[in-house]
């Protein structure tokens, strides 16, 4: 007796099922991914999630207070000779089968562009939730999956530290300078030391014990209650979860500032953080004016004709949900309006919502911005990357879009999948 190929295939395949996907789980995963996407692009180069949310809720009003009446510093804007930060991205990314205990989709990252060098990272990630890949002026810092901290200046990667603590946002760098920091749980397993590392000199420059980061309180889900947030100048910011009766979780998240020069740790206010950002050359102030606007280091720009219009993630008056609303951008600390425009011969990829997001500051005058892939199923894929100049507003393509089936990852953007 004979059987057709189709009958033979159907005989096995049709045995499968019925499927019973858990709808609540699917919606939960989808919502988490939507939040992660939003958060990741807003905090593209460093500010912590909680701080951004706080700023979005109350930032404009709070910053509109009289604390910035000094006005912008009056000095000319011109292309600077500040250190040039390497642009980091990878086009050597594949989906891989998930580890049985991890579920979901994993990815493998092979070669990574670090400036004009190609570095073999060879990193398998069991899922696409997160990966520490931070850029400094000297190169790229990342975790190797087992928690160890590695660095490459464009040459062969080397381990620079043992296991760091925590589960999310575990390594951070600033928008300028060679520093990166993390919490060290290997040499300090019972307390967790905040370690600031200079990737340029290859030296640890500060180590501050933060014993209360180790959380033994059973009602909190965090095993390690601190996570790195940002570096601005000599100030290292981190968040900590603490007991706080009266809230649904009985806890609260607080921002702390470690002053590396002074060796002191203090509770930081949002105002302290934004003041630091305002005095920093690599951030933008979003809003109607420099005085009343909010300093941000991650910005979304909508493409309107040939212009890149900055948007601000705020709740509109009377509105229920946050939206990206068009606004103005001003350079810090000069206060000059920033008006980016595309080169006349450049056409962005077709998309329902053409937009670019901050990728990294290459120098004080140059902000690299990236476009998300137009295909909604290529979530997290990044298309071309432009360099936009504060001094003249001109944006030039510096990295072409990848081939249609090539997955590109860029630090600060959500991972694909």
């Amino acid at each position: 007796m004979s059987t057709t190929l189709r009958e033979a295939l159907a005989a096995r395949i049709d045995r499968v099922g019925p499927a019973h996907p858990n709808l609540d789980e699917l919606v939960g995963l989808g919502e988490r991914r939507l939040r992660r996407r939003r958060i990741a692009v807003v905090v593209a180069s460093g500010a912590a999630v909680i701080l951004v949310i706080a700023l979005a809720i109350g930032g404009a009003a709070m910053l509109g207070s009289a604390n910035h009446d000094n006005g912008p510093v009056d000095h000319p804007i011109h292309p600077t000779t500040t250190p040039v930060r390497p642009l980091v991205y990878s086009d050597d990314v594949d989906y891989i089968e998930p580890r049985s205990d991890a579920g979901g989709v994993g990815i493998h990252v092979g070669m990574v562009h670090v400036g004009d060098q190609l570095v073999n990272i060879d990193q398998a990630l069991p899922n696409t939730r997160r990966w520490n890949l931070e850029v400094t002026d000297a190169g790229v810092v990342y975790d190797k999956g087992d928690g160890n901290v590695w660095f490459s200046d464009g040459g062969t990667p080397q381990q620079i530290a043992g296991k760091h603590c925590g589960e999310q946002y575990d390594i951070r760098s600033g928008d300028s300078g060679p520093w990166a920091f993390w919490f060290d749980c290997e040499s300090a397993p019972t307390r967790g030391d905040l370690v600031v590392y200079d990737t340029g000199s290859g030296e640890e420059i500060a180590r501050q014990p933060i014993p209360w980061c180790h959380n033994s309180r059973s009602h909190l889900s965090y095993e390690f209650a601190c996570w790195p947030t940002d570096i601005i100048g000599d100030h290292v910011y981190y968040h900590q979860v603490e007991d706080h009766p009266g809230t649904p979780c009985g806890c609260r998240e607080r921002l702390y500032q470690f002053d590396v020069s002074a060796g002191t740790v203090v509770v930081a206010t949002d105002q302290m953080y934004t003041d630091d950002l305002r005095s920093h050359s690599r951030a933008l102030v979003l809003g109607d004016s420099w005085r009343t606007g909010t300093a941000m280091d991650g910005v979304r720009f909508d493409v309107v004709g040939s212009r890149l219009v900055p948007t601000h993630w705020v709740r509109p008056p009377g509105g229920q949900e946050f939206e990206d609303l068009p606004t103005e951008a001003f350079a810090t600390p000069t206060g000059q309006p920033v008006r980016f425009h595309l080169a006349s011969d450049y056409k962005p990829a077709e998309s329902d919502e053409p937009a670019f997001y901050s990728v990294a500051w290459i120098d004080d005058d140059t902000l690299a911005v990236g476009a998300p892939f137009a295909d909604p199923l290529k979530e997290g894929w990044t298309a071309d990357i432009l360099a936009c100049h504060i001094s003249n507003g001109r944006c030039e393509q510096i990295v072409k879009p990848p081939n249609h089936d090539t997955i590109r990852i860029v630090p600060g953007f959500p991972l694909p999948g």
Partner: protein
Amino acid sequence: MARRSLDQISAFADLVEARSTAMLRLAYAVVGDYQLAQDLLQESLVKVYVAWPRLRDGAAAEAYVRRTIVTTAISWRRRRSFHESPVEAVPEENGPDDSDRLATHDVLWDHVRGLPPRQRTALVLRYYEDLSEVETADLMDCSTGTVKSQLSAAVDKLRERVGPHSGVLFPEDQAVTR
């Protein structure tokens, strides 16, 4: 607060309810492993949930799920695609004995699982899902020429492996006998 509206979640739930079994079978067909197929289906449905506002209707959503399943499955296997996946236990060739009809299906399926990912995917889309070559190419994100060559290679390989007396009628055989 959910970023998707109740109407969108409801429409998504309808898609999940109505089409999950068919999608799970497609996932199983292209990866050949039940556990992986479930992971693949979940991943694809989550992607569609995220992309939902940009999908015009339910048909578009289903098409996106199918495309995600296919492209993700190929990507998962891409790193292994330089060599074929080993068949765990290659059964001996069987004759066209009536009592062995089910065994013939099993033999063939084991060989299908052993095909390289693109060949296996083209085969199941064309001969199990009954898609045209154009539709198969669209789903696989490749040209129809690639689909033809992958199909030809897959069928040749299966024909050689199951042997001339397996009782399996391949597409060309059917054309001749009709």
